[in-house]
């Protein structure tokens, strides 16, 4: 069996990839995908620790994280559509003011 630390290191690397995408990219859709990568890294940590500790609570928490991720994706993508309709751009360097 692969040790638990391998799972944690894999999740940490995936989280850092998500953070890097979030901070570096300028297309707002790709930034959103980076958020999903980070959420998945955290889910992986939860499930591997749940398996290690023989308790189901981690898996229940992952279920709730997935529900919140679905809600966040719908709202975020609706915001993206509204922003694009008003600004004709998805570049975060140009979407830095609340007012038009």
């Amino acid at each position, binding site marked *: 069996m692969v040790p638990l630390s391998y799972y944690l290191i*894999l999740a940490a690397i995936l989280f850092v990839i998500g953070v890097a995408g979030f901070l*570096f990219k300028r297309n707002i859709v790709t930034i959103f*995908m980076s958020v999903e990568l980070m959420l998945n890294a955290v889910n992986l940590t939860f499930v591997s620790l749940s398996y290690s500790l023989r308790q*189901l609570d981690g*898996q229940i928490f992952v279920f709730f994280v997935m529900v919140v991720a679905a809600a966040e994706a719908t709202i975020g993508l609706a915001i993206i*559509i509204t922003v694009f309709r008003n600004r004709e751009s998805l570049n975060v360097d140009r979407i830095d003011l609340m007012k038009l």
Partner: protein
Amino acid sequence: MVLHDFFFYILAAIILGGGILTITRRNAVHSAIFLVMTLIGVAGLFLHLQAEFLAAVQVFLYVGGITVLFLFVIMLVNLDEAAKQRQFNRQWGLALGCVLLLVAEVGYFLYQGRDSFSFAESSGVLLQNNTQAIAMSLYGDYLLPFEIASLLLLVAIIGAVVMAKKQI
């Protein structure tokens, strides 16, 4: 078991390769496809960790739901000229500093705790009837959070409709 380890390394390669390609591709549709690759890899690791219910939910919700939503939005908004421009934003120096700090932090803590990370002896108690056990827990101890989650989804549906509509 060698086969067990082999599957872990294959899935880890799929996850990391998909993640890196997701954030480096120029075309947003390609990014979404590589995101699907990563998500399926994570679902495979959930199966590997004997969380069958979560693996199924991951495939239904992320691969079937959220990614299709992403593709819809990518095709609704016009990204053609965005793909031709510079991919990375102006503050890349600051961003690089933050990422390196995070790498150092996570690496330090994983290094500090390297002796405490090993799986307990397999008891097999948790791992039988995973879906049934989750359902018992969800409708027993976690009933209130479950109801709040359903309310949150309702709010998200109404909010998305209100925001995406042109004239209310």
